[in-house]
């Protein structure tokens, strides 16, 4: 027992050393030569090693299904550290609880999972620890550029856990039954929706009720829109830029012609629609296969995945839909230990393997490009090597996207602004204009200088 633990510690340390060496080798591309063994103020990686050795106890909030197994593996590798795992159920409850604890001044965990879109809000409020001093800058090459960009703005505020590059999931059985081709452009997608409704009014090309801001923003991102620009206290919002309009125009057609089902996502009806194929496609993040497998077993074998349709028929461009990182909070009594746990959690092979085994979609370049990952044949998807499509998506995420510093609030009022348009079958552009006004008002109230 002890011998085995010792071997594991030794192995983990060796791996960490090798990793560090590898990073030094590849991070010399013109960056100012900072040595990774950290003579800086935070004590760098040494402080982390010392804290992990000394041990202690930390609390970790997450809703990741693999968390329990990851924590168990961590505690085995670092027997002096005790991690209290709290399952927060989902992103919404997680954020509310975290916001409460931060307002109260105590009760926040040491390490917590945050969606990329919620991260700026907590970062700007000074609730998170900048991990630059712990040498986390050296970890950059491990992650895809889009996920790294999400955690590093004027500092490093966390490490990416997963990513959600969008792809088009479609029900092949339904497509075959109605003689449809997999759409490669959004115009073809709309035509497929028309054909489906004409053939059987119970079948919809997809579902969207205008209440999911995460979907709306990702679709704007995919269409080339960059509506939010944040530079410190200065925020520019333009929800009528070219990309936003491009999405709103084509999506309005789907809504006005009644081609999308207005079933809300994640409801039991939604799972039922996916299982039966009456919701025939889903443009959604690459983490969806795990959800399919756990929630819609009745539809096993029917589904396939294809690249996102484009607007111009050119090179595929996609966007991130969801995905999250883990961060260290300012309330942590032992930030070095928390950073050590975080580093192990989202960069060690052992932890990422546990995450992959539970059906997660990683944010790390190495796993995304490993032959084992790419050639995995999913039974649920009729033996398709789905990761080839999804990794292609991960490599074609449009760059330069930013979220608002109050994205959680913005998302919570999206349904009020955009939802009514869906009910009235109106123009989604009107809904986006209304959403813009709400955001300008709120941002100004919060003390930001908001330009339009």
């Amino acid at each position, binding site marked *: 027992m002890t011998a085995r633990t010792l071997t594991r510690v030794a192995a983990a340390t060796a791996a960490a050393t090798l990793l560090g060496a590898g990073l030094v080798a590849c991070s010399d591309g013109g960056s100012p030569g900072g040595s990774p063994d950290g003579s800086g103020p935070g004590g760098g990686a040494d402080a982390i090693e010392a804290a992990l050795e000394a041990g202690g106890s930390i609390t970790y909030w997450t809703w990741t299904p693999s968390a329990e197994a990851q924590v168990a593996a961590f505690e085995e590798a670092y027997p002096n550290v005790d991690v209290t795992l709290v399952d927060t159920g989902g992103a919404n409850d997680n954020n509310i609880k975290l916001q409460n604890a931060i307002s109260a001044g105590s*009760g926040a965990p040491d390490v917590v999972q945050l969606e990329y879109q919620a991260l700026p809000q907590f970062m700007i409020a000074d609730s998170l620890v900048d991990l630059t001093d712990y040498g986390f800058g050296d970890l950059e090459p491990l992650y895809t550029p889009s996920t790294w960009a999400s955690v590093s703005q004027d500092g490093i505020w966390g490490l990416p856990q997963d990513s959600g590059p969008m792809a088009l999931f479609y029900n092949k059985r339904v497509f075959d039954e109605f003689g449809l081709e997999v759409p490669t452009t959004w115009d073809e997608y709309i035509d497929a929706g028309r054909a489906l409704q004409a053939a059987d009014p119970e079948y919809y090309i997809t579902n969207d009720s205008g209440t999911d801001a995460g979907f709306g923003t990702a679709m704007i991102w995919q269409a080339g829109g960059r509506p939010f620009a944040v530079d410190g206290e200065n925020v520019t919002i333009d929800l009528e830029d070219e990309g936003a309009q491009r999405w709103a125009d084509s999506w309005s057609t789907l809504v006005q012609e009644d081609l999308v089902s207005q079933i809300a996502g994640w409801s039991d009806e939604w799972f039922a629609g996916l*299982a039966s194929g009456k919701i025939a496609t889903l443009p959604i993040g690459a983490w969806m296969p795990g959800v399919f497998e756990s929630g819609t077993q009745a539809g096993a074998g029917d589904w396939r995945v294809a690249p996102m349709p484009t607007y111009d028929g050119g090179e595929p461009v996609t966007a991130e839909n969801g995905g999250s990182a883990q961060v260290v909070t300012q309330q942590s009594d032992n930030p070095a230990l928390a950073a050590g746990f975080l580093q192990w959690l989202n960069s060690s092979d052992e932890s990422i393997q546990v995450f992959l085994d539970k059906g997660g979609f990683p944010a790390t370049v190495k796993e995304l490009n490993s032959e084992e990952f790419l050639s995995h044949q999913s039974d649920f998807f009729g033996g398709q090597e789905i990761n080839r499509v999804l990794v292609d998506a991960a490599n074609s995420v449009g760059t330069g996207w930013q979220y608002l510093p109050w994205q959680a609030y913005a998302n919570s009022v999206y349904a009020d602004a955009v939802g009514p348009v869906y009910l009235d079958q109106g123009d989604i552009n009107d809904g986006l204009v209304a959403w813009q006004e709400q955001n300008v008002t709120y941002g100004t109230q919060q003390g930001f200088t908001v330009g339009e």
Partner: protein
Amino acid sequence: MTTPTLDRLSERSSSWLAPRSSKLLTAAMSLFVIYSLLPLAWLTISSTKTMDSLFGSFGLWFDGPFALFQNIHDTFVYQDGIFLRWFGNTLLYVVLGAGGATALATLAGYGLAKFVFPGKRGVFAVVLGAIAVPGTALAVPTFLMFSQMGLTNTIWSIVIPSLISPFGLYLIWVYAVDSVPTELLEAARVDGAGELRTFFTISLRLLVPGVVTVALFSIVATWNNYFLPLIMLSDPNLFPLTIGLNQWNQQASGIGSEPVFNLVITGSLLTIVPIIIVFLYLQRYWQSGLSAGSVKQ
């Protein structure tokens, strides 16, 4: 006390208006019964289905394999049997919170009904005012206060607020005024019994229907308490059933979702069984307690 009420009712039912209005009332009541029982029927039927047949079948009739026992088994073993832990937590909160609330309300209500002291009117006003404030409105201030005292995320953050039941106090007060004759207390005092002995040997027995009513109210309120534990607790090991089941329900949303709708439904059914039993068993006290004070003796 109930006799005059019955007399009046029978008098009215013999009047010429009665047959027509009673038909209407029966129809209205039947509608209400259906309205109230329909969700219960849905819950019972749905808890016999697997998750696949839940999705693909009509909600108000049986379909697919009869999975009730499998569902119950899965509910108890899912996530290392945390459901049982939540069940125990709810029981603990009910015993400490509702039990304490009933005891405090009984003592205070009796005291206010049977003793004269300066400031009684003021207490009366405060209690009445407290009834008007919904508990939900106090949850956030209570949370901030408790967090300063370091009590959040402990069982006390649920038990202590549950101890306060202004409505129960008021009910006992009103009930004690009528059901414990002051003459009886005076007789006991003349015989040399102390106030505590008088309370426990004489008054408490007379108060039983009122006490049971208050207990029933407190038990139901604590059993169903949702908002307070939602904001107070973050450790799943301290969750009551209401929050735990919601967490299972939430699990269906977002990345890494693991929907367990069948367990949420079966868990909900198991959650309401004890409260239905308690209610059926204690309702006779409740009825007599509610009518207390409504008729002048």
